[in-house]
């Protein structure tokens, strides 16, 4: 009898590890898929995925010919976010332009606007917003309010001296949207890459028939899972670091936290994603099923992670579910590390859930592979 009977062997593990690394890195296509798209997406999304409103068109129906309405129109015309202003002669035209989607907002300046202001009263404007684009509409409205507030401040300055309120935004003084979005994107893209690599790995071997070959060998299920986790962990971590580097050096986003704590968080984050990916792979019979599974898990995970909408705004039951998503915790860590120098204890509070998710998902993946033998 040979000594192959032990349930854990470094020799067997090493052989599988080498096989996994080659399987991922030898294939020029998979090499491309792993590194090129996430980095490209980071660049594209960083410019495209912005909540700032720019290049909007407005419609103005100016019934007043006084000084203040002229002032208002001038300021609108020179505002950075406005690309074009349609001047119309009747209020039904305002509605038509909004209906046709040509403008996002229509402004009607009443005939007595300037007179009211000069008389010391607050001037009334009617603003019509396209509710179909509620988010951009709201932001446009905010910009318009700011312009009007500016004008009234000027009026009051001419008449009296009142100090206006000064707002200061902490951590991101200029409210640079990219500062907020790029660290989050790096988390999301690393999440998807790691999920893809691992969810395909067992399914690919099943399709090739090599998985049966592995299962008839003395290697244990735990060894199979470990050997599949490690290369994906290395690649995912590397990718995460590359994107953090791009954020710091390319986008010049101030990094105020601890690099080493972030590195530990990335490793645990990727490990938990690897576990989820292997779970998907263990129950899929084909690569097609695995890809569908990865998307079925991945897309809702991103939506619920707090990237687009704050977790606190969700119903309680979904908030609880969001805690099981590795991305939820990692986003807190990565955004915190960039902008507000998250304290070690805050990081720890988000790191232990990652560890729990990793342990649970990797255990389940092992069990799923074993159960397929039944």
């Amino acid at each position, binding site marked *: 009898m040979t000594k*192959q009977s032990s349930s854990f062997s470094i020799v*067997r593990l090493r052989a599988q590890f*080498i096989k996994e690394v080659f399987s991922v890195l030898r294939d020029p296509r998979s090499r491309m898929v792993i590194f090129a798209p996430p980095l490209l997406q980071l660049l594209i999304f960083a410019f495209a995925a912005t909540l700032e409103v720019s290049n909007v068109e407005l419609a103005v129906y100016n019934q007043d010919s006084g000084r203040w309405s002229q002032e208002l129109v001038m300021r609108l015309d020179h505002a950075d976010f406005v690309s074009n202003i349609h001047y119309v002669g009747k209020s039904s035209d305002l509605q038509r332009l909004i209906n046709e989607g040509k403008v996002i907002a229509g402004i009607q300046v009443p005939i007595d606007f300037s007179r009211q202001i000069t008389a010391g009263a607050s001037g009334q404007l009617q603003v019509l917003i396209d509710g179909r684009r509620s988010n951009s509409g709201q932001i446009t409205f905010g910009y318009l309010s700011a312009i009007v507030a500016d004008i009234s401040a000027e009026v009051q300055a001419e008449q009296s001296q009142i100090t206006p309120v000064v707002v200061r935004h902490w951590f991101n003084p200029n409210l640079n949207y990219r500062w907020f979005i790029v660290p989050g994107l790096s988390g999301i893209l690393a999440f998807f890459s790691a999920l893809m690599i691992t969810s395909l790995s067992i399914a690919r071997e099943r399709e090739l028939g090599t998985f049966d070959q592995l299962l*008839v060998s003395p290697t244990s299920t735990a060894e199979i899972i470990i050997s599949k986790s490690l290369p994906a962990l290395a690649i995912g971590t590397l990718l995460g670091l590359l994107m953090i580097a791009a954020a710091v050096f390319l986008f010049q986003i101030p990094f105020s936290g601890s690099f080493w704590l972030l590195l530990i968080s990335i490793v645990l984050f990727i490990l938990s994603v690897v576990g989820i990916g292997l779970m998907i792979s263990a129950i899929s019979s084909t690569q097609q099923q695995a890809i569908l599974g990865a998307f079925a898990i991945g897309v809702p995970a991103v939506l619920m992670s707090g990237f687009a909408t704050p977790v606190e705004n969700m119903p309680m039951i979904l908030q609880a579910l969001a805690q099981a998503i590795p991305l939820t915790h990692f986003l807190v860590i990565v955004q915190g590390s960039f902008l507000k120098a998250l304290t070690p204890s805050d990081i720890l509070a988000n790191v232990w859930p990652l560890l729990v998710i990793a342990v649970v998902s990797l255990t389940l993946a092992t069990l799923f592979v074993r159960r397929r033998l039944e």
Partner: protein
Amino acid sequence: MLANNTAVVIEGVNKHFANTKALRNLSATIQYGQLTGIAGPDGAGKTTLMRILTGLLEPNAGHATVAGFDVVNNNEAIHVVTGYMPQRFGLYEDLTVMENMRLYARLRGMNVAEHTELFAELLEFTRLGPFTERLAGKLSGGMKQKLGLACALMARPKVLLLDEPAVGVDPVSRQDLWRMVQALTDEGMAVVWSTAYLDEAERCDTVLLLNEGQLVFQGPPEELTNRLVGRSFRLENVGAERRAVLAEVLNLPSVSDGVIQGAAVRAVLRKDAQVNELQQLANRVQATIQEVPPRFEDAFIDLLGGGPGGTSALAERLPKVELASNIAVSCKHLTKRFGDFTATNNVSFEVQKGEIFGLLGPNGAGKSTTFKMLCGLMKPTAGEAHVVGLDLRKATGAAKGQLGYMAQKFSLYGLLSVKQNLEFSAGVYGLSGAKQRQRIAEMIKGFALEPWLNSSPDSLPLGFKQRLALACAVMHQPPVLFLDEPTSGVDPITRREFWTHINGLARKGVTIMVTTHFMDEAEYCDRVALLHRSELIALDTPDALKRSAITEQCPDPTMEDAFIYLVEAADLADDLKKQGGV
């Protein structure tokens, strides 16, 4: 018009994909009212030719006409006059038999309501009448093929093209397909049947034999077979020593090819060679020698220059297997249920050390479920399986180290080089350091893999791919080797070489468990277990199984005859039991 009975004309057709030449300057004709076989191993160009004839592919050079229409210029007309059944027929698995037939009728632009008679006729012809409401996905392999045939026949084509219709179809259903095709050619239809099985080609009226994209023979199969008259012999009753005798026979300079047939050894002499050497050998081993009718497969091998020698360089290097017990594999009351479906029911047998043991059965008979339980890929619902005395359920790791496994599709890692594949296999079986290097060197020598070490397994010729897969399976010198349909789609020469190695391993005491669809491969086995409807219906030597199937109509049954006879007898007994029970 009477004189022109030609259905298909192929002239100088060439087709290449990237840098592989699928067809090279092929010219041939196919007649109406005949069954024409397109035969050859995988990769010979059969499917490419079929797809050119149906207008699905354009040739790079040359042209072809089907029923008078050019396949490129008259593409639309081709679809009207031909019926085509691809390898995996495009049945919609979520539709019933009837819905599939209606769909295909509508796709052909037919009014379904007007053709109730045609439907009834097709259902009668394919004997699918009782199953019209069954989902196509729930049909057996044979029934799927019959439904595919019914759909292909829908528009009464003049030329019917069947691409490997008998793959995955058991001998019983295959017989049904032959009957149907025979009836169609009698009506004057031109039927083209492509196949990798040369015993199927032998049953065609005329054969186009392809090898590596070239036409190596065209004509009635007898014409080719007759070249071997007076050159085929059988050494009868060689008995237990037959593997050693085969090795000796194959090593004779005057012999070009040989196989085992039950207790006998069959040999084909080289052209113009004398029988003396073979006669002397027969005298020495006290076997009677008898001239036998030649077979088409032998003729094909002869055409390609003869089979490989009889010595396995691999087996020579391996030590003899020593086991504590003489029983290498055993199972008791092995049962597997999936829900309320029983895939394997109460199967028990014992396999001796050094035995070649075959598992045969129609599709869905539970053959592969049983096989998977024996090698630990599936856990039995009840009963137990032992490999070299170790329970696969309790001591899985230890038991698995004692078996080698080679799957149907050569499970190799295409992204690793040949050397890395060998290293990987050695590694997962716990071989390391000097021992690993020594075993790998043995495999490289035994299988002559040296020139290929740095290439990818995907780029290897089929024969070498198979050698590599076998090398990976035997590297850890397992006393028991499991082979799951190891030679499907492989050309006959590669198959001969494979069996030379297997015979060599068996002589060293390695126990071989094998499943196969090739009936002549079952002849290599010491004993064959026949599974049908999840149960073991026969277990004996190939010769004894053949003897049990002797009837008045069939005094000298082949293995395939025996298979059909036993399966039908079991069905009959089942029916009687049910009637008696009611």
